[in-house]
């Protein structure tokens, strides 16, 4: 269909013309996200009502135009990229509804609400919304839901999916359905809620969500442990978790990450240790005081070099600063950051570190590793320069080997970033032909014309990971 006609028809659906974007400059603003790739859409619309979304989907179905739901574009896997042109549905303006119901302990939100605002508003009532992806201050809840975002608190509190009990969804064919509800228990038919969360916008457009909240923990305490040997740190992680303690957060940084941080903003961390672990415990003050002692004992048993316990919340913040500085620190080395989130069973963390070290040496790359150690969700980050084609070729090969290593160790391509476009070529390696076929059948049954977020999750025939401009 020609673009002018599409704009006219869109005008009949969206009453406010300011919410229909067609200028080149606007379209270019929606052509990328926080991953790789650049694709210009034909039109961008900013719906603010479920009916509007339903009508857009019906129109798109009628004329077979691809539609891409989008929040703030913080996706690290290419989820919102308009890879086949068409309509971008920008849901970030639909942020009006953020209701906290403290009796049922739920939040009811529209898709464009910023994730961090949900937690902030819940805190006013003594509650928390636990999922805390690093992008929570800018990412929308709609994007978090579509990608099933995680975060450091995932170890104790789980990920986005564990907090969603109901959705309003517009199906690819433009039907409005409600899944789940306000009840914690609900087994009325298939669990469409959990199916849609994490489906990367390929099965429906989320227009409202009911989220569970949780009482705010009475207190928290932080500890930092420094290890001469990476393998010892892995043992410490396993031993802490086997001793009956479930920390709220348990983060690890390797030597390269520590060195990058020290080079960027010196915090006085020793740069000759192989690993640093940060642990946050939360709960009743007396209970966590006991647990803190136990954690220190365990660290000593496995041969820790040094343990620092934060006496005040300021001190705790200072310890956490090391972890927060990793991302900004590493991009100072080179401009391009390839951030992965291959995840392995917790017991395989030391083995995964070993494999990553081998890959780093083999391809001679700047590879740093940090991440959520407690749940096996590591973030190997490769720092490179996009303009150096030869280096990017090596990056491609290294990324492929990282995925292979994770799967060989019983892990997955992605713990929290999603598959999107970048990891699609590797899906069959993880799921097998049959497993992938099952997912395709679900996609086809809901979206027979393949118009909702096409080109994501499922690989095209012969698709490979490409980071160079060939």
């Amino acid at each position: 269909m020609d673009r002018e006609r599409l704009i006219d028809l869109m005008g009949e659906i969206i009453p406010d013309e300011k919410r229909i974007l067609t200028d080149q400059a606007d379209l270019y603003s929606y052509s990328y996200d926080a991953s790789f790739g650049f694709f210009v859409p034909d039109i961008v619309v900013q719906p603010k009502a479920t009916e509007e979304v339903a009508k857009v989907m019906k129109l798109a179905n009628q004329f077979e135009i691809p539609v891409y739901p989008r929040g703030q574009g913080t996706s690290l896997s290419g989820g919102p990229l308009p890879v086949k042109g068409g309509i971008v549905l920008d849901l970030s303006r639909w942020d009006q509804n953020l209701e906290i119901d403290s009796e049922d302990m739920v939040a009811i939100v529209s898709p464009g609400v910023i994730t961090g605002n949900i937690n902030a508003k819940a805190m006013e009532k003594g509650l928390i919304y636990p999922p805390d992806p690093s992008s929570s201050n800018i990412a929308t809840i709609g994007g978090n839901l579509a990608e099933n975002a995680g975060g450091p608190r995932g170890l104790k509190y789980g990920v986005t999916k564990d907090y969603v009990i109901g959705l309003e969804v517009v199906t690819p064919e433009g039907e409005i359905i409600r899944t789940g509800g306000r009840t914690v228990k609900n087994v009325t038919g298939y669990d469409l809620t959990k199916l849609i969360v994490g489906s990367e916008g390929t099965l429906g457009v989320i227009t409202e969500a009911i989220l569970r909240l949780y009482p705010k923990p009475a207190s928290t305490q932080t500890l930092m442990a420094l290890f001469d040997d990476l393998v010892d740190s892995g043992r410490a992680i396993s031993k802490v978790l086997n001793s009956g303690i479930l920390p709220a957060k348990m983060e690890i940084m390797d030597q390269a990450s520590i060195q990058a941080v020290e080079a960027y903003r010196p915090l006085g961390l020793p740069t000759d240790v192989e690993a640093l672990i940060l642990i946050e415990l939360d709960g009743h003050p007396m209970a966590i005081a006991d647990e803190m002692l136990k954690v220190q004992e365990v660290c000593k048993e496995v041969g820790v070099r040094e343990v620092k316990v934060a006496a005040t919340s300021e001190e705790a913040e200072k310890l956490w600063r090391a972890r927060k500085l990793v991302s900004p620190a590493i991009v100072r080395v080179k401009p391009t950051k390839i951030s992965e989130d291959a995840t392995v069973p917790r017991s395989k963390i030391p083995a995964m570190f070993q494999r990553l070290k081998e890959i780093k040496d083999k391809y001679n790359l700047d590879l740093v590793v940090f991440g959520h150690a407690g749940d096996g969700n590591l973030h190997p980050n490769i720092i490179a320069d996009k303009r150096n084609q030869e280096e990017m070729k090596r990056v491609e090969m290294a990324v492929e080997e990282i995925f292979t290593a994770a799967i060989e160790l019983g892990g997955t391509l992605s713990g929290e970033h999603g598959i999107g476009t970048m990891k699609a070529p590797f899906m069959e390696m993880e799921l097998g032909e049959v497993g992938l076929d099952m997912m395709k059948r679900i996609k086809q049954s809901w979206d027979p014309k393949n118009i909702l977020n096409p080109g994501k999750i499922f690989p095209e025939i012969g698709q490979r990971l490409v980071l160079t401009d060939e």
Partner: protein
Amino acid sequence: MITEEIKKRMIAIIGPENYDDSKVGRLCYSYDATPDLQALPDAVVSPRNTEEVSELVKICNEHKIPIVPRGTGTNLCGGTCPTEGGIVFLFKHMNQILELDLDNLTMTVQPGVITLDVIKKAEANGLFYPPDPGSMKSSTIGGNISENSGGLRGLKYGVTRDYVMGLEIVMANGDIIRTGGKLAKDVAGYDLTRLYVGAEGTLGIITEAILKLVPIPETKKTILALYEDLEAAARTVSKIIANKIIPATLEFLDQPTIAAVEDYVKIGLPTEAKAVLLIEQDGSPEQVEKDMAKIADICKSEQAVSVQMAKTVEEAEALTTARRTALSAIARIKPTTILEDATVPRSEIARMVKAINEIAEKYNLPICTFGHSGDGNLHPTVPTDARNKEEMERVEQAFEEIFIKAIELGGTITGEHGVGVVKAPYLELKLGAAGIEAMKAIKNGLDPNNIMNPGKVFAKDSRKRVVVGQ
């Protein structure tokens, strides 16, 4: 219809001792725990491993023979009743705990393992598998997963779904797939694991599961609070949660239930109270102490006539055991017991309890109500007699009103028992036509010949039928 040739092929796979089409054998598997519902299967098979399940399923798919996977038949929604004949699959040979992984805190099990054995094995190793459906002494984990069973600890710990990390499934075409793994985080494609949990055996057969375990709480305490007024008990529930305390168990029993239980267990329960709350908290000793003191205060401030803390572990155990016998106790009153599990948001409990009492009066029925008040999951139960057609008609009308009321209050028709046959006619009340269509599309996509537990979840016609069968 099973021909001689099909029978021969099946026997060649599993051996004659695992194929039973005798009248007696078929009769034994013609019903489950759902009252007044019976249908004969054509044969009963007991495969010994996943490959045999797969081979049998391929034959069934080829000849479009219905398959009914069955654990120990404790189902309360008719989910395991072979209403369309076909073959019942038993898992008596696939009943092993395959692995306890103390590094990743997981347990890998076959579907025929008894739930309580999972719990005991975890506890023997200082770990905890929280889901505790009322039938846990006899139910299998495969059945629990298929129905997404709940239990008394659902409020704090969630339900079966929250503890399933990975599955091995035989699909309707006989293909074997693996979903998830020992991974705390996994977003590679659609969440098939969660889709299969609670799918009531309509999408495939679960042949292995990886369960998540958590550290066992250090200690627990139990309180029994008595009320002269139902609504005061319901208000207490809301107030406990409003004070940001989430107890491990928060059970409600009304007077008729208490009388039935006391008559059965004879441990000196207060049969004169109008309502009883059984409250349990677990965790660190400091936290439990603090929470329990606060809970006792709240009970008193809401006019509890008596608040007693169990003095010993044995005394506490006796109280929870008494609660667990509620269904058996009520079942002694009359030959037929109709039990439902309509669920409402927690804030609507008082209104729901009141509505149930009004409905009981209107239809002149002795409804006993007990259940998991903390998560809004109530079990209104009627002791009746299937032979009394006039009374059964009234029971049916009363339950229909209860379902409608639950949905009006923002709830659902089933919190933990499943839809099966008996609630299928009411599915549309909750999901609407578009919601059912979305689920049916998935069913058709994954089981095009409709051989996996046909006639369950989706109603064949709109004829309302809760209990009057045949």
